């Protein structure tokens, strides 16, 4: 009886032993299985989108090469057709002439248009392969489009800020305003701040905080300038305006007649 009970007891204890004591090899196996599976998923994803990535770069390079070829062709054709001279003949206003010749501008626009087209094609190819490789319906294309638009906004804003700053500086110096440089810097930073706010808004970063901060900053700058001009620089502005009116009168006065005697006049033209 005792021997049977002991053997039964041994058998039960042997069977209960795995339940009562932890099995280390099983935990490690589960962990390594989990790691292996996640690595497999990621590598599969990478392998799946690799063709899309490659397609992106290939599309970009091919379209850039096409753009370069077309740009060079356009430059030659427009040079042969004397495009610059024809455009110059049709323009009389020099204030908006670009810093590059019309031929050069056209060639550059042609090149960058093809680069942009290559970018769109490449991103579209990448986006397609990414969407098919993953279960999540995530598409990168809209965000990349916003990013490209934001870059264009930034470039345009910077160019406009530089142009306006220089215009204001030269005009203010010719109007003999002592604060010409301050005025020019103020205009430049106003435009740059406006551009930065537009870029952040376009990228949907910050939301209402950016709009509010920009409104407070811009309004504060304008209010400060108004108070400064209205209260603090009143005498300076009136002196500048008076001297400007006197100079305009000197420059535009007719040549002195005998009755006017020794009136000092300059006729520039």
């Amino acid at each position, binding site marked *: 009886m005792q021997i049977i009970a002991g053997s039964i007891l041994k058998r039960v204890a042997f069977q209960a032993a795995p339940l009562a004591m932890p099995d280390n090899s099983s935990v490690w196996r589960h962990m390594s299985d989990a790691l292996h599976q996640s690595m497999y998923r990621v590598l599969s994803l990478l392998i799946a989108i690799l063709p899309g990535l490659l397609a992106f770069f290939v599309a970009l390079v091919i379209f850039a090469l096409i753009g370069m070829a077309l740009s060079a062709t356009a430059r030659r054709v427009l040079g042969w057709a004397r495009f610059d*001279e024809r455009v*110059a*003949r*049709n*323009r*009389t206003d*020099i*204030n*908006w*002439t*670009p*810093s*590059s*010749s019309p031929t050069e501008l056209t060639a550059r626009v042609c090149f960058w248009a093809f680069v942009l087209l290559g970018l769109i094609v490449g991103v579209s190819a990448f986006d397609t392969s990414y969407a098919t490789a993953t279960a999540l319906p995530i598409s990168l294309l809209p965000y990349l489009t916003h990013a490209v638009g934001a870059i264009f906004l930034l470039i345009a804003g910077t160019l406009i800020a530089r*142009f306006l700053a*220089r*215009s204001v*500086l*030269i*005009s*203010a*110096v*010719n109007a*003999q305003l*002592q604060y*010409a*440089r301050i005025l020019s810097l103020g205009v430049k930073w106003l435009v740059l701040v406006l551009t930065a706010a537009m870029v952040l808004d376009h990228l949907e970063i910050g939301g209402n905080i950016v709009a509010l901060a920009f409104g407070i900053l811009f309004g504060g700058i304008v209010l400060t300038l108004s108070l400064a001009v209205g209260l603090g620089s009143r005498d300076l502005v009136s002196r500048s305006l008076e*001297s400007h009116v006197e*100079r*305009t009168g000197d*420059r*535009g006065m*007719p*040549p*002195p007649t005998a009755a006017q005697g*020794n*009136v*000092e*006049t*300059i*006729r*520039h*033209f």
Partner: protein
Amino acid sequence: MATANSTTGMTTPAEPATGGLLVLLTPMPSEQLEGILEQLSGAFQPDSLVIATGDGIAVDAWPSLTFEPLPSAEMSVTLTAADFVNAHQLAEKHESRGMLILGPESGSLAPAALHRLADAVLSASADLAVPCYDLPPRAGLVNSAILYPVTRALFASPVRFPLAIDLGLSRRMAERLAVLSQRLPAANQRDTLFWPVNEASVCGLSIQECEAGSRALPQPVDPDLNTVLANVTGALFADVEAKAAYWQRARRPVGSRPPVPQTHAADAPMDIGPMIESFRLAWSNLQEIWSLVLPPNSLLGLKRLSMAAPENFRMPDNLWARIVFDFLLAYRLRTLNRGHLLGALIPLYLAWVASHIGITASGVAPERHVEAVAAAFETEKAYLVSRWRWPDRFNP
């Protein structure tokens, strides 16, 4: 027998006068028009004269004169492409041997001056007759500082007033200018400046300068110096750029002109302090813009000038010549926006004016100084040619 045109009220001849002189009067106030018509009636035979004007005129008051109507236009102190187109068309219609184009205030010209201009083109001795005015010492300073020296240095033309508002043209000169004008869109013909002296030089047509005596200068529509200087200088720079193949060939310098007798009394001393302050303000604010256009040598010269006392404020002639040529190069290379470039030239021009007034106040005759400036431009032409051909390599 004359017939009346009921629409315009002008008299048109049944048989057009041929082989005579066509006089084209640019838009001007009616009192000036009356004055010039009196001069013309006295100076020329009415039967050989055809007068073209767009302004309303009481033709009954001038029964002996023949009129041609022109499209109405705004008054301008310079001759534009549209004036040359009209002159050529009417000259073809009337088979005129020569034509005069007279601008506003031309009634102040002596009849002898009108005769000289007309004789030069009617006698076939010249294709282009340009008047040489006797102006007060402080008048026409843009012409003295920029237009005359540049034209003389690059086109080897001794004409003192290359953008004169009165001209005498032969048929072929008018045809040449009309052909160039018609290449422009109609909307731009009223605003585009032409340079008849430069065109005649390039085409090999003969130019004759005629003494015209004193003349009243018309008031620009927009008397702002910024606008006038930018328009005129920009047009000159564009013309020089278009004719680069011509003026880069070496030509014999013109040499000094004969001294012009000064009939105007010397002007009273003028305070050039504001002009010097304007230049100093520009020096402190526009240095970075000027440094894009001017080489270090010129900037150093301007720095010294900014530190000079008003009584010693003298801009060297060769410095001014190099500055103008550097701006011409920057115009061609589009280093800056062209509007900005010409705006940045204004303080430098005012510095030259202050220097010119200071020099003439010290006893030097104004014309002598202007001739010295023009000679400096001729000397520095080689500098312009080198930088034009190798803009990146030759930068002293």
